């Protein structure tokens, strides 16, 4: 007889003895997680309501509730088109970047103790022109040592890794990174302190864009940093997103104009998963891997990026309407990496 129980005792000491409820079911309203439930309706009404909800089951997209962008201090809609060109001082393009510890909401109601550059995840999108002299004044306002490591071509002392040049920047200390903007393309910057995966996964990364000298054609430009969050520290992500907030562009689609050239700067900053991908519905795009060539390598609707990989996508929407985009690694899509373009005239 003992074996009878065995089937029921599942992993992690959880046991689900299932059974049907009687007539006295607590009344359930559809609630967003922040509202409390108030009873009062009859059990029969509750049963009808549950039945109705059950049949809606598979149509659900997204999370329950909304993330408070104001409390987070950044808005995915703003990050999308926010390019930080810094300030030109005596022919040098300069930025001030501060590392800070900050709790952010990555999915509705779910808080994550992030490490940030300038209070946001991803950090500011730094934009320069090929050949310019760049200077980054880095202050570590976090309670942990950090660096900024830029992808690009530069001397070792400016590489932002522990043990070389300024190395790890201790809490409260600062340093200056200075190098030339080379080569043109779409790059990445991130913390390189160890443990490396942790320092990146907690939010210390951002897009680093170097425009070619001759520039690129005019377009509606969007930055999408694909990321994820390991909220329970098991070295796999519970929440996935573009620009941090799960389902942000499902709740509020990305508005673009019909026929206008749309350029997407796509960066994969995901940790713990080897691959990430981007797929757009009902359309195809030109793909420029790393953005270092002016000719597209591909004309496709799905692109795969490994960790740290990035590329530029160019496309035009011929029809108005709502078009989905998401990781074609499907489980990422349903865990937050999903959105819509809303094409208008």
């Amino acid at each position, binding site marked *: 007889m003992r074996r009878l129980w065995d089937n029921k005792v599942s992993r992690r000491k959880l046991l689900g003895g299932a059974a049907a409820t009687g007539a006295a079911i607590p009344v359930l309203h559809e609630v967003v997680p922040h509202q409390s439930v108030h009873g009062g309706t009859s059990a029969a009404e509750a049963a009808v309501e549950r039945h109705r909800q*059950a049949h*809606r089951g598979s149509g659900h997209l997204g999370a329950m509730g909304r993330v408070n962008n104001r409390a987070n201090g950044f808005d995915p809609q703003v990050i999308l088109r926010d390019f930080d060109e810094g300030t030109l001082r005596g022919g040098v393009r300069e930025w001030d970047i501060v590392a800070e510890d900050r709790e952010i909401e990555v999915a509705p109601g779910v808080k994550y103790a992030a490490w940030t550059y300038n209070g946001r995840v991803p950090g500011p999108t730094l934009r320069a022109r090929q050949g310019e002299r760049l200077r980054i004044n880095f202050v570590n306002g976090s309670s942990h040592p950090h660096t900024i490591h830029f992808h690009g071509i530069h001397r070792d002392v400016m590489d932002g890794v522990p043990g070389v040049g300024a190395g790890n920047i201790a809490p409260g200390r600062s340093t200056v990174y200075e190098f030339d903007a080379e080569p043109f393309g779409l790059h990445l910057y991130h913390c390189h302190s160890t443990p490396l995966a942790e320092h990146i996964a907690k939010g210390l990364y951002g897009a680093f864009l170097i425009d070619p000298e001759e520039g690129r054609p005019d377009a509606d430009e969007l930055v999408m940093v694909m990321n994820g969050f390991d909220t329970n520290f098991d070295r796999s992500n519970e929440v996935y997103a573009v620009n941090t907030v799960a389902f942000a562009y499902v709740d509020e689609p990305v508005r673009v104009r019909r026929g206008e050239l749309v350029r997407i700067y796509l960066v994969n900053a995901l940790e713990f998963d080897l691959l990430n991908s981007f797929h757009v519905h009902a359309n195809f795009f030109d793909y420029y891997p790393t953005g270092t060539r002016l000719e597209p390598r591909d004309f496709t609707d799905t692109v795969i990026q490994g960790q740290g990989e990035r590329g530029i996508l160019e496309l035009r929407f011929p029809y108005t309407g709502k078009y989905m985009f998401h990781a074609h690694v499907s489980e990422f899509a349903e865990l937050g990496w999903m959105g819509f373009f809303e094409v208008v005239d």
Partner: protein
Amino acid sequence: MEVAAATRARRPPAWLAGLAPLIVLAVAIGLFVALDAPGLDRIGVPEEELTVERTVLEPGLIELHLRNDGADPVRIEQAIVNDGFAAFTQTSDEVGRLATTEVDVRYPWIEGQAYEVMLLTSTGGTIDHAIDVAVETPDADLGFYGLMALIGIYVGVIPVAIGMLWLPWVRSVDARWIRFLLAFTVGLLAFLGIDALLEGTELAGAGPEALGGGALVWLGAVGAYLVLSGVDAWLRGRRERVEGAGGEDAPGRSSSPAEASAWRAAFLVALGIGLHNLGEGLAIGSAYAVGSLALGAALVVGFALHNTTEGLAIVAPTAKERISVGRLALLGLLAGAPAVLGAWVGASAFHPSVAALLFGVGAGAIAQVIVQILPQVRERDGRLLSPLVSAGLLTGLLVMYATGLLVSV
């Protein structure tokens, strides 16, 4: 002198002296809480622990009944089923310590598949719950209760009744063999008692730790033993008083003291076995409810063989005395019918901690019955473990072990 006398006169009553430490304790606790535990700082992050006590599957709906098993309140913010966010409702925003909540996740689950439900809390922690095989939870209608009753009758009532048909044979054998049969009964009960303790402990591990865990089983066992011993002593005392007074209208006055003693022993054996069968019913009912019970002839036959020997154990103490058919029927029902009750409860309101406590109660009752029967097994020369008695004990243990294998499907 005067002062001392006055003090003595104003001395508080004894009960107040007994109460004083409690009052001081209450005041101390009140102050400690009011001052927010002076000198002690909470170290570390909130500990979030939720235990799933019950899972109910309806078409398109996964219903989890959870209890907060940890020290801190928990807020469930998102539900993830098989790597996808899912819509859900919950009965309370925040689950306090030991409080319960019901989370209803809307998900188009498919029968026979496995699911992993993950509840994401406000701190990003996760509560994982695996559904090994998704099967719709049976509706608690008349047909369902009827089916559970039928199973209970098949595995509990009928086998015990058949086993009791050994009564004429028991009466015909001589005193030595009756001792053997009583020893057999004790061995059988010992097996059931050990089994109940082990199963209860396993179940307790599945329930919330905060509700007592494995201690529940032993609490149930010791409690049942003490209560039954007390009741037994009270019954004996009452009977002796009644007999001493020679009261005309004393209940059961027609029976002799030996008859009464046999009846009491048989009653206690039936009660112990009944509590055991309650546990068996619980196991069958709850396994059926989650679809992990292969209902079939083999299982029923196994339980029947297992439980038929229990009928023999009940009638063994009555070998030398007359017992009315009505009373025999009562004993049979007492031992077998709890299987029906157990199946109902197990299938409709199963809770691991309650089940663990019940298993403990069963084990305690069985221990008490064993202590009751043992004196009758003793040889005339006072030896307890004669070869015959040892053989009887071993046979009881082995028969239960062997027939138990039949139900380990």
